[in-house]
């Protein structure tokens, strides 16, 4: 099943990572105004003739591909070509960026002020910047940052401006447009706006994709978008969205450019600005609408300390090298290239795999703070821990994480006690240290002390804390899945453990970033890592727990426990309470109510089951496994539950029945 070469390639520890520079340091020592008015002469794509935003629009509107779709739409709808053309122009007007240097300079000035008051430092890997500069010169570049905060894209442009790199144009959601003034400011700094959904709108799609492709083909500016599509509320990476990635790959696949460089960027925050907001959102409090007044109200965040943030520009990935041997580009030879076509299955799966690969690269280069290790223990000990014990455990986990290849920013030459307590004090809104006991803080619910209100406040702080634990999950995910598999399978036989592993992997593939079709590789990697840290011995036919594994493995199991429980709760709800008229819309509130009931009854301890993110993911998994089906009725979507399947899934997750082929087959 495994070969040695796979191990050595996959060994994450071997990966050399670059050093960081704090870009705020200079800002604290010299004039922001002068910085904002500095001479800005970025290196451009080779041979590029720069193009003004207005010119860009003209090129797009006159492009063969858009003209083709316009005449098609006109023929289908019966509207005149001129009318459709106007419609297209209007769409483009709504979408297009109007980047201008003066606005960028304005942002450079104000953001300098803002960042200095928010963050202790903003650390950037300068080697990554150099690689990016090289990449921008050679090929069209796509910047793919992780998305944890609204700060992300402001920060990206800010950094690129600081290092004199070509400013990116950024795909942003239409929500920002509704913000008076701010939307337009963002547009003038390089954002372009796309509607959240435009499924069937051919014309919209054509304008949008041609707009992006024109920028890319000519290499006018790097294109920046978020693979995850939206901010992750849980700090776990989200399943990548493929639409834009499909679009930016097309010019290469059609031979219009020699290559495209994809640059994954990992942005990590020691403290996320939106942490409490996210937790509330996950518990069903609607997200505040983006508005300028909302933004102004949020200015109190400036009085708080958000620690440091790290931005890691990853190795540029050449689409050409990725496609080598996977894609037969000759497929595009037989139809004129301006005629839009659905991607082939080959291309589709290629883009999908690439997307996962890129998200994993983002994860791997995410800088982890000691706090995320502390949060991991706090989430396993909700009732609180001794400080000394916490320090000891954190150090143990630090070493384990390092041996698994985590990108840990643990200060040198500082006692571990100091490291832990300074982390705790930065997050004093979440934890309290009282008489040597560390525990999660729960804000006092206002007014009536109903058990529901109390639970809500507990959940808010638990989910906030969980979001930090989630940052480190990707490091432990595969070994943890193996640990659970070994525990559930209750055997040492490798094939059975693998069956169980692969079952869990399958169930959780909406929850975590698990590249499709790589079960064997993941299993090998998990085995390798656990063997390396001495937790298991891998034999020809079996996986055996060692003495030190008796500590490591239960810890890893405990890490996944909340998710196992959460999925079981969803299953139980579907088996016990769901009726035939359960609509998709009602699903989340209903599960939440069910979970609250269990919590109050004391039969459920973990808070993740209350999170809408987990509930959504669980539903997606059940749909994928055909245990639940969507049925469209007149005005709503009803969920049809196959109770037998859901029940057996729940039992398997709970370890009540072994994973066996028949069970899988039935699913």
């Amino acid at each position, binding site marked *: 099943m495994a070969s040695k070469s796979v191990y050595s390639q996959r060994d994450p520890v071997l990966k050399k990572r670059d050093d960081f520079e704090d870009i705020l340091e200079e800002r604290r020592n010299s004039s922001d105004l002068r910085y904002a008015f500095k001479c800005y002469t970025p290196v451009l794509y080779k041979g590029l003739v720069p193009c003004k935003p207005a010119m860009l629009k003209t090129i797009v509107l006159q492009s063969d591909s858009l003209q083709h779709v316009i005449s098609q739409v006109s023929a289908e709808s019966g509207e005149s070509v001129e009318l459709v053309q106007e419609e297209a122009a209007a769409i483009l007007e709504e979408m297009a960026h109007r980047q201008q240097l003066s606005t960028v300079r304005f942002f450079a000035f104000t953001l300098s002020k803002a960042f200095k008051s928010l963050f202790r430092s903003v650390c950037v890997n300068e080697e990554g910047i150099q690689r990016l500069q090289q990449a921008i010169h050679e090929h069209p570049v796509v910047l793919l940052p992780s998305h944890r905060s609204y700060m992300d894209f402001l920060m990206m442009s800010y950094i690129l401006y600081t290092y004199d790199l070509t400013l990116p144009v950024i795909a942003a959601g239409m929500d920002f447009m509704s913000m008076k003034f701010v939307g337009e400011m963002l547009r003038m700094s390089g954002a372009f706006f796309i509607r959240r959904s435009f499924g069937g709108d051919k014309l919209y799609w054509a304008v949008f994709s041609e707009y992006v492709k024109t920028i890319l083909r000519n290499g006018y500016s790097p294109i920046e978008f978020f693979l995850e599509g939206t901010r992750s509320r849980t700090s776990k990476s989200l399943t990548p969205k493929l639409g834009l990635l499909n679009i930016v790959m097309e010019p290469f696949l059609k*031979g*219009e450019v*020699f290559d495209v460089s994809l640059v994954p960027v990992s942005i990590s925050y020691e403290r996320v600005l939106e942490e409490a907001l996210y937790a509330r959102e996950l518990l069903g409090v609607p997200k505040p609408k983006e508005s300028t007044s909302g933004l102004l109200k949020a200015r109190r965040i400036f009085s708080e300390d958000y620690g440091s943030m790290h931005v890691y520009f990853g190795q540029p990935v050449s689409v050409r090298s990725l496609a080598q041997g996977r894609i*037969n*580009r*000759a497929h*595009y*030879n037989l139809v*004129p*290239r301006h005629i839009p076509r659905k991607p082939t299955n080959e291309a589709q799966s290629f883009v999908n795999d690439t997307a996962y690969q890129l998200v994993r690269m983002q994860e791997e280069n995410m800088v982890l703070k000691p706090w995320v290790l502390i949060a991991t223990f706090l989430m396993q000990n909700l009732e609180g821990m001794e400080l000394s014990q916490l320090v000891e455990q954190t150090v143990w986990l630090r070493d384990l994480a390092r041996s698994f290849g985590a990108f840990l920013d643990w200060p040198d030459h500082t006692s571990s006690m100091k490291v832990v307590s300074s982390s705790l004090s930065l997050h004093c809104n979440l934890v309290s240290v009282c008489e040597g006991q560390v525990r999660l803080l729960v804000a006092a619910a206002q007014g009536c002390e109903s058990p529901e209100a109390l639970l809500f406040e507990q959940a808010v702080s638990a989910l906030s804390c969980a979001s930090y634990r989630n940052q480190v999950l990707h490091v432990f995910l595969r070994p943890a899945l193996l640990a659970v598999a070994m525990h559930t399978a209750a055997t040492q036989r490798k094939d059975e453990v693998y069956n169980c592993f692969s079952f869990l992997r399958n169930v959780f593939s909406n929850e975590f970033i698990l590249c499709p079709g790589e079960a064997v590789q993941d299993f090998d990697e998990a085995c390798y890592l656990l063997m390396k840290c001495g937790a298991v011995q891998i034999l020809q036919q079996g996986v055996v727990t060692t003495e030190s594994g008796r500590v490591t493995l239960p810890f890893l199991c405990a890490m996944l426990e909340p998710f196992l429980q959460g999925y079981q709760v969803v299953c139980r709800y579907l088996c016990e309470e769901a009726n035939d008229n359960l609509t998709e819309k009602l699903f989340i509130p209903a599960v939440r109510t069910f979970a609250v009931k269990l919590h109050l009854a004391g039969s459920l301890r973990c808070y993740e089951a209350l999170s809408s993110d987990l509930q959504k993911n669980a539903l997606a998994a059940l749909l994928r496994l055909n245990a639940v089906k969507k049925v469209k009725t007149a005005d709503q979507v009803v969920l049809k539950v196959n109770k037998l399947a859901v029940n057996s899934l729940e039992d398997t997750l709970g370890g009540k029945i072994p994973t066996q082929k028949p069970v899988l087959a039935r699913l």
Partner: protein
Amino acid sequence: MASNGKSSERQRTAQQRLRIIAGHLRKPEEADHTEIAAQECKAESSRTNPEKPNSMPKRRQEIMKWNGWGYSDSRFLFNKKGQAEFTGKRYRLSGLIMPSLKDWFEGTFGANLQHKSPAAPALNAGVVPPPNLNEVFVEELKATGIPFSQDADDRMFRAHGHCLHEIFALREGHFGRCPDMVVWPNCHNDVVKIVELACKHNVCLMPYGGGTSVSSALECPPEETRSIVSLDTSQMNRILWIDEKNLTAHVEAGIIGQDLERLLNESGYCTGHEPDSMEFSSLGGWVATRASGMKKNIYGNIEDLVVHIKMVTPRGVIEKSCQGPRMSTGPDVHHFILGSEGTLGVVTEVTMKIRPIPEYQKYGSVVFPNFQQGVACLREVAKQRCAPASIRLMDNEQFKFGHALKPQVSSIFTSFLDGLKKFYITKFKGFDQDQLCVATLLFEGDREKVLQHEKQVYDIAAKFGGLAAGEDNGQRGYMLTFVIAYLRDLGMDYYVIGESFETSVPWDRVLDLCRNVKERIVRECKEKGVQFPPLSTCRVTQTYDVGACVYFYFAFNYRGLSDPLNVYLQVEHAAREEILANGGSLSHHHGVGKLRKEWMQESVSSVGLGMLRSVKEYVDPDNIFGNRNLL
């Protein structure tokens, strides 16, 4: 001007009458000839005929290089002063000095005149493996009186074409499988006899025309265990008749391009088929590879030029029963022959279209600010269907290359003029020296029409920012194609190896394909450890209604590489893959041979390949024509 035209017309009729009269006078002799038609070839072959225009002797190595391109007396070299010169007397460049070639050569390749990589001095017959003869076949062949040879140098000469790896191996003194003997049939009937004997004794036949293949088509398959006989068609080189009423000529297929053209010119005609290799390549070879000529815009490619083909196959002779200009008789059987690359039989005689020699020829050239503009102009010219006899667009690198071949200027005045031109184009018109590119043009026809045509083309060019740049530049551009192969030998003396290859591609992909293939070459060289950036350049050499033919040159300095040949082969392979991925064809006119065989299925689909296979199966079930090209 009108009187001029009239007088030339008068001249022509006069000449024609003279020829007819001469014909009348010779009549009894000709009648004699037809009487002994069955014996025709033998009689001819046994006679030593000094008038016979035979520029290709049986022992080709006497006038041609055995390990390089072309005539032995013509080669580039760097003289003691370090200046490049071209020896011999055959070409316009011959005997001239090219002062800027050295700098270009050293600058482009990072080569150094101190670092030489000389070829193995002479062919040592001892290293050529002894022939594997089929004795019975040899005996019976002897009885027919058809000349043949088993000499090592004759066999060696026919064991290769002109791919880089073939020439490189010769220079290094490595020899692979050789043909075991060479036969020189004198006519169609000789070929029939040879093929019959080969079938009877199961001998492998490999037709050999001009030997200019660049597709490994002439490489003997190493797995072939039978005796391999190279069938050299060079002695079948007569024009059998000219039909002035229908404007056709019936020609033996071994004739080489320059002889065919010269002989027809003597009668006031031409075929107009001028592939770059026409000094050496043969009519039969053109048919077998689907050749294309520089002036195809007026005269057409080989498939447009042939009216009738006679080919000897193991199943017998294939030919059509009439010479009608077009037929609807099922799929055209000529198209099984055209491009068959010697896998089905030997083309022995061809009836070709001929045209009166054009009255007037004029070269021209246009400078464009960049390659995109140039391609756009060529596209427009093709759209308006007003392409001159030839129109080619060189990219910037090739433009500079061409400039490096400028011979020493004779007077201060010319050099002053050159300086002025350069100033005008780069400073006054603002063309970037590292962007501009040149189209070379050749017009043909009556004088008036040529001038009119010229104006039309220059007007179109002006719309795309093109500036007329004189006849001289144009002519030099065409000369480049004849000497480029000689230049490769020069490079190989100094650690530089290179090759050219071609493709055809739809108009909308021309630019993308050129850019991507050139860049792929650069990138592959870098990845394979080539120390210095390679020369990677292209030109658009033919225009069609729906696309263009693109020609690439690439060359690099291989100092410091342990296995340069392998690196070169990998880069060439990668470049071909890039072409195919960008919508280019496997070949426009070089053919497939064995070099590009692996992509045939992808190119014509497996059903298509099956069709070709089944034809081969029927025509040549015992694989007598066993060069294993194409399929």
